[in-house]
């Protein structure tokens, strides 16, 4: 069983690593993944051996909060309100601490920054009234510590649980500063006025204030990273108009049940998934598919939640409600992707897990080393505090999940659903891409491509006759001709006689004309002279098209060619992929001639033709055995085995469950340009993650030695813990800001 829990109280990667560690040890827990950025844990467990309550209890025992996520739509608002409240509280805490930290810093540093000529009241002059000066600082520090009390409760609890985290570092650093300052106050009271220089209340106060600022900015940025999911959630309407006994009732969306008949007026959003029972309209499904052109709907057609009814009044029967709608499935998919971890993130998590204890050891060793070497207690303590404060690994913990959240969210905005961090990471490594032909490179439904006339007949007349003859035919080729005539607004003529010739065509009588429609074999059997059209027929066949001959009263009238046409974007997408250095191949069950004709049209050199659906995965395997990283692009149903076999399976579909389940990436639109866009997005995201990791690691690699006083050894400056706190907060904010740059991502078009 797989459940998602909302986790509270995490502050850095060490927290998420700790939760993973304690829960993974539980009997019956198969897998757990905790995401710091989304504050969610996805846990797979055996319900026979353990329960969700036991897992929650274990998490709470480790010092964090855990709650189940309800699947109702109302949770969206609750979550939003909770986040907003959290951000508001953090800002209040920050401002409260700022109100006290500014005068604290003023009094503490003002006397030292003499060139700024800060006036200090005589009664607080540190040399003349050191105790007043110290008490003033204590009084100003108390509210700041109260505002940052969480660092102490969480930090020390984590130490007691033998899993120190970022809060532990902050708590230990500031506590050391406060305790030493209180000792200095005691010394002042004993008449040792020189101890006034050992007051570090402002260090503790300013560190807490800066960390609160960093946390507030982090919370705001985190909110922005999940904007994509919020946008998706915000699409769902809150109410639906249900028809009961011919009366309209407006009911909350949660109360809509399968089988309810729902009325949707023009301009309204469709509340749940269903099938139209009455009325015609066009529906804007762009929020689901990214396709901006409205789709015509009539009785029998499916409609989807959150799409917008443009111009007609329709009634439809609810088929999927709540968490089963296509929108809910997309949200679930995006949420899971955002909550999942890329392999690169797992490495960062492992490092973070060891990081805090190692930093603590470094801080203690540096403190002892300086103290034993003859430096003062104040000097050694400054080193100790600076190391603890500067080494917080929160930037490290945020580096990958924030980029993945923004990356997958941005993909969702463009109708590119990436199913997880791993998929996102693997996509950028792809060097070979295999396209299924039918439905992927081509539209997947035959269309009339050419109409060639003979014997003086007009093009329109030929199409009208052929379409009238095929009206009612269920053959795909006949259907294509009827669709073409409908599209051109032609009237259908009455058919007086009709006879099907299995495997060859049909024979009909229309307006007293005896018509024969079918393949070349039928024409030859009926001794129809094809002279003059044979060359055209061969050309069409060579282009992968199927020619249908039409003869009227024993004389050939023309050819209507039908083919599965190539999508408008196919060639452009393949050109783009080739320019990106990818090898492009096409796989199909069709005959080689047709396959090669299509491949030639779109510029594909490598063709794997006449491959049965069950053998498609073997072809992918062969490419993989050549050492290639293969992505398979298919429609997600008959290509499922190949999609699964490929390193990355990309399904082109309309968001059906099958497509979503079988692929790593789902392209909601049928636009092949989304394939290079997905690779481009993956590359951008991975580049962003690498930048984030570089800065986060680099910051610690540079920051810790500086804080430990390495520069001081060579006559350089000593890092003030206040600047260490500012730098630490800045590192988290810079990592988040860099991740947010991904929001500017624009795919190839």
């Amino acid at each position, binding site marked *: 069983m797989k459940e998602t829990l909302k986790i509270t109280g995490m502050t850095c990667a060490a927290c998420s690593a700790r939760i993973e560690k304690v829960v993974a040890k539980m009997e019956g827990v198969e897998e757990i993944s905790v995401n710091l950025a989304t504050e969610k844990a996805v846990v797979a467990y055996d319900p026979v051996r353990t329960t969700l309550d036991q897992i929650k209890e274990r998490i709470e025992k480790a010092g964090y909060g855990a709650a189940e996520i309800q699947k109702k739509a109302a949770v969206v608002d609750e979550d939003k309100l909770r986040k907003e409240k959290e951000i508001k509280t953090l800002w209040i805490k920050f401002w409260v601490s700022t109100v006290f930290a500014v005068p604290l810093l003023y009094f503490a540093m003002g006397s030292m920054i003499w060139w700024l000529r800060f006036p200090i009241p005589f009664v607080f002059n540190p040399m003349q009234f*050191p*105790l007043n000066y110290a008490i003033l600082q204590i*009084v100003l520090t108390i509210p700041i510590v109260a505002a940052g009390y969480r660092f102490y409760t969480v930090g020390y609890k984590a130490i007691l649980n033998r899993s120190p985290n970022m809060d532990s570092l902050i708590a230990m650093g500031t506590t050391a500063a406060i305790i030493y300052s209180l000792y200095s106050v005691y010394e002042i*009271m004993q*008449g040792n006025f020189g101890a006034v220089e050992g007051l570090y209340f402002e260090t503790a106060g300013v560190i807490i204030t800066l960390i609160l600022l960093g946390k507030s900015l982090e919370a705001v940025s985190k909110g922005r990273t999940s904007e994509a999911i919020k946008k998706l959630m915000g699409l769902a309407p809150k109410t639906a108009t249900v028809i009961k006994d011919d009366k309209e009732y407006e009911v909350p969306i949660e109360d809509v049940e399968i089988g309810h008949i729902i009325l949707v007026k023009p301009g309204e959003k469709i509340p749940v998934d269903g099938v139209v029972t009455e009325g015609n309209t066009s529906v804007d499904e762009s929020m689901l598919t990214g396709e901006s052109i409205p789709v015509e709907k009539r009785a029998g057609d499916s409609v989807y939640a959150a799409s917008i009814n443009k111009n007609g009044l329709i009634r439809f029967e609810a088929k999927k409600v709540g968490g089963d709608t296509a929108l809910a499935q997309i949200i679930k998919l995006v949420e899971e992707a955002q909550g999942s971890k890329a392999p690169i993130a797992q490495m960062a998590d492992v490092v973070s897990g060891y990081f805090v204890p190692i930093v603590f050891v470094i801080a203690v060793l540096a403190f002892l080393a300086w103290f034993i070497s003859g430096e003062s207690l104040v000097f050694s303590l400054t080193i100790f505090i600076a190391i603890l404060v500067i080494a917080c690994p929160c930037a490290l913990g945020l580096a990958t999940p924030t980029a993945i959240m923004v990356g997958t969210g941005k993909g969702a905005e463009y109708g590119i659903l990436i199913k997880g961090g791993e998929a996102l990471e693997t996509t950028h490594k792809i060097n070979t891409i295999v396209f299924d032909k039918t439905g992927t490179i081509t539209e997947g439904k035959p269309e009339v491509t050419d109409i060639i006339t003979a014997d003086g007949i007009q093009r329109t007349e030929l199409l009208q006759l052929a379409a009238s003859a095929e009206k009612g035919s269920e053959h795909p080729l006949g259907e294509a001709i009827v669709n073409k005539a409908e599209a051109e607004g032609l009237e259908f003529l009455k058919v007086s006689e009709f006879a099907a010739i299995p495997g060859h065509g049909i024979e009909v009588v229309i307006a007293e004309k005896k018509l024969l429609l079918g393949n070349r074999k039928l024409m030859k059997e009926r001794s129809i002279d094809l002279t003059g059209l044979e060359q055209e027929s061969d050309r069409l066949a060579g282009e992968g098209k199927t020619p249908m001959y039409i003869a009227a009263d024993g004389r050939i009238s023309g050819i209507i060619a039908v083919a599965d046409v190539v999508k408008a974007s196919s060639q452009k997408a393949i050109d783009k992929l080739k320019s990106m250095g990818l090898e492009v191949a096409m796989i199909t069950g069709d005959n080689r001639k047709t396959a090669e004709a299509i491949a030639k049209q779109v510029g594909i050199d490598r063709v794997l033709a006449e491959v049965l659906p069950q053998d498609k995965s073997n072809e992918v395997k062969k490419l993989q055995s050549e050492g290639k990283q293969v992505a398979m692009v298919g429609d997600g149903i008959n290509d499922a085995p190949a999609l699964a076999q490929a390193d990355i399976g990309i399904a082109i579909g309309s968001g059906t469950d099958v497509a979503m389940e079988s692929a790593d990436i789902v392209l909601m639109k049928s636009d092949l340009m989304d394939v290079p866009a997905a690779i481009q997005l993956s590359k951008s995201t991975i580049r962003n993650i690498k930048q984030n990791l570089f800065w986060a690691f680099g910051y610690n690699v540079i920051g810790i030695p500086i804080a430990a006083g390495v520069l001081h050894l060579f006559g350089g400056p000593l890092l003030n813990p206040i600047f260490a706190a500012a730098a630490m907060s800045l590192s988290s904010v810079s990592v988040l800001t860099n991740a947010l740059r991904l929001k500017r991502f624009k795919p190839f078009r």
Partner: protein
Amino acid sequence: MKKKIIIAALAMALLPLLAACADTDVVGSESVNSFKEVLTAMDQNVSEDEMNGGWALVSPDGTERFIWSRDYSSGNPHDVMLEFDAKPFLDAGLDPSKLAPGILAEDKIMVGSDLGDEELSYKGDATPLASYEKLVELYRDRIKYHADLDHYGVNVGDGNMFEWAKDMSTNDKDIVFVVDPAQLIDAGVDPEKVEGWVFAKVKVMDENGKPIEVDKFLKPFSIQ
């Protein structure tokens, strides 16, 4: 959040309360204790000074005096002052005509300040220590703590000080007469030629709190 607001409000309320509390003036109160030790150690050198209406602490060589008033309403020109022999300075080139009036009287140089005109009342007898306590109580800004030397001091005005060790047992300069050399140098004194006084740089804070080094004439004594 309410709890935190209360804590913050309490902290703010405590601030003036604590600041107003006289017991927090540890420099002032500790200076009284150590001045008492100086007075006890030099009890033979402390006497009433009728002329100046106060008390005088004479240096061990008898050439300098620190004088502090018993009653500021007495009308004397100085309520706190230093008095020292003019001879070393005259020998070093001091031109008496160049000094401001009232500084040189007979063979003595006097520098000091008029603090006010309050009529002081004492709970018990007026003693040298009680008068010093009144000075701390009424003119706290005249009392200094000199961290570099671990000295307390009374600022008698114009950069002139009388300083004494906070802890005589650990300090080799138990009392120090500190004289600002500016007006004496302006009056012709060659600072290097003043016998019995040390002309040295001393670290002090200016009015903006800027640490600066200034020239001073110093005459330190060990009294133990």
